[in-house]
């Protein structure tokens, strides 16, 4: 049986040759295509294992090279009351826009979209840009499909006060760098939600998670499933990713 010292020595070369931040960046690259793209997103909310509510969105995302972070436009398709409303995340700004009234409302990252999914959950985000990663340990955990996965457990700390979560415990599969699980924590250390990444399928050049299951930290019976689909490369005009350009959105 390895002593703790032996374990640390075994991990040291790992930390030196594969910097922890690069592990996180590699995991981001699995979730997020490098080229501008659009995808469809279905949010399904469950309570006590019964389906409660559903929303359908289309997400347009493009990397902003200056920030190293994605700019996102989310278009609501269903339910009917929200159809064609828009949510824009552009750097530090999150805007909600209703084309029927031309009203643009600035939102905070903490405001919720549906179920347990916050604005920060539905948009495309490079965690490596928003969080500092530290390697805590290696461990085997059960993934979202019930299979054991050997993972690096990373401790992520927010680099700025306006990112969605203060701290994240993040499991990345060794070798493949696939995201497996995330636990999102408040400033006080309270568990806000747990996310499982699963159903990896080829999309835009590599295998990506097609589902993220979010479980409420206080009430495990409150579950939201984010289902991704229809990945397509897409030219996204700059005007779509600016608050003042939302009134001219047309797709």
């Amino acid at each position, binding site marked *: 049986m390895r002593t703790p010292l032996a374990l640390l020595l075994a991990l040291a070369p790992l930390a030196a040759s594969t910097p922890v931040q690069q592990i996180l960046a590699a995991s981001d690259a699995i979730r997020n295509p490098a080229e501008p793209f659009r995808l*469809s997103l*279905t949010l*399904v*909310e469950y309570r006590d294992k019964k389906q*409660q*509510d*559903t929303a*359908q*969105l*289309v997400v347009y995302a493009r990397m902003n090279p200056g920030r190293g972070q994605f700019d996102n436009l989310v278009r609501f398709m*269903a*339910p*009917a*009351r929200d*159809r*064609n409303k828009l949510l824009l995340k*552009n*750097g*530090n*700004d999150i805007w909600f826009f209703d084309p*029927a*009234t*031309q*009203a*643009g409302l*600035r939102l*905070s990252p*903490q*405001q*919720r979209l549906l179920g347990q999914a916050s604005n920060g959950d539905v948009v495309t985000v490079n965690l490596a840009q928003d969080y500092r990663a530290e390697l805590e340990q290696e461990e085997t955990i*059960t993934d*979202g*499909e*019930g299979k054991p996965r050997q993972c690096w457990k990373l401790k992520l700390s927010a680099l700025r*006060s*306006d*990112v969605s979560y203060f701290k994240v415990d993040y499991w990345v599969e060794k070798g493949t760098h696939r995201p497996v699980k995330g636990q999102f924590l408040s400033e006080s250390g309270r568990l806000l939600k747990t996310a*499982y990444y699963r*159903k990896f399928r080829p999309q835009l050049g590599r295998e990506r998670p*097609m*589902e993220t*299951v979010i*479980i409420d930290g206080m009430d*495990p019976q409150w*579950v939201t*499933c984010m*289902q991704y*689909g*229809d990945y397509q490369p897409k030219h996204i*005009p*700059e*005007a779509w990713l*600016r*608050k*003042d*350009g939302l*009134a*001219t959105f*047309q*797709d």
Partner: protein
Amino acid sequence: MRILFPTLLAFGLVVMGQEPWLPPTAPEAPAPEVSEPQGTLFLEGGASLGDGVPQRSWYLGLDGRSTWRWSPTLGATLNARVDRDWMSRPGGASTTLTLREAFLAWRPKEGWALDLGRMQVREGVALGFNPTDGFRRDALLAWRTQDFNRLRESRLGVVGLRLQVVREGRSLALVLAPRIRENEADPRGYDPRFGRTNAAARWSLRVSPGSLGPLYGSVVVAGGEGGRSLAGLNLSAGLGRATVAYLEAAQVKRPPEEGGPEGRFHQWAGGATYTTPWRQSLSLEVRRNGAQPRRLSESTLPLEAWSQALRWQEPASRDSLLLHGTWDRLLSDFLTLQALWQRDLREATSMAWGELAYRRTRASLGLALLRQTGAPLTAFGLTGQRWAATLTFRWYL
């Protein structure tokens, strides 16, 4: 007790150690349908009871918005509503068309947009009062709720030409609105009411330099016939992950018949919105409306001043406070509570409004209560209405 405690402890450990429930993996998620025309259509109805005039009223409305896209560069939008109102007094039934938008949209190249026709032109980052919004006068046909978002749905667009350019993070929007006809006293039925929005030629220009760190801003200037002018500023900033702060301010000059003191006056609204991790939002907004007298009850024409404030959709008080809160998923996943409180900071008059709404995928039902206090010539006492209860429903077709 010696058996109960260990049993409970063991049960708790078992529960804590259980794997969480995850829904079964779904088949391929269906792509949302994007069909032409794109839009929404809903039926809305409401009934109101109170001690104002009229005491009872009902309405039924059909509301729709459609957008067509004929080519990558050319499209059109139609946004309209028809209401049938009944009131508890003889001859109290009427039909009203609210033609909010009907315009052609041309996108000649990336970052350029040209719209021609009747369109919504709105400015402002504040919640309940938008001093930089120069096209709001007489644009609201019916005041059926205190909900800011639903009031905006009832607003008439202005007829004109709009050019918008977005480049390298900066943007510019120019609107030219001609004079079409005088504002009629009492148009009926399906009249599009161009006189309410285009009684005088006007223009506006908004320039936005984009984001500066957490700060976002824009400058608005506007003018038109009758010597009217406006120069304003909008600023908003995200503070951490839970708070948004904003400030909207304008220096305004209006023709005497549109209300306000001679010369120029200032208007501004500033505040912040805080959202908790548990789906509650609370906003506090402080407002100054320099178009109003210091104290409405001491002015020479309080009814005229109050009436102008209503036409401009601005506070009837010179200095006022607004508190707004929402609680999503109150007691149930489908219940939302919204509450609003406004208070004059110089006179003892206030308004409190709350709505509990039950929302499902295609339908919603809401119950709202209104309470107003104040002496007869104050901002919320002038109409004499002390309370009202309103029941509304929406059905999305």
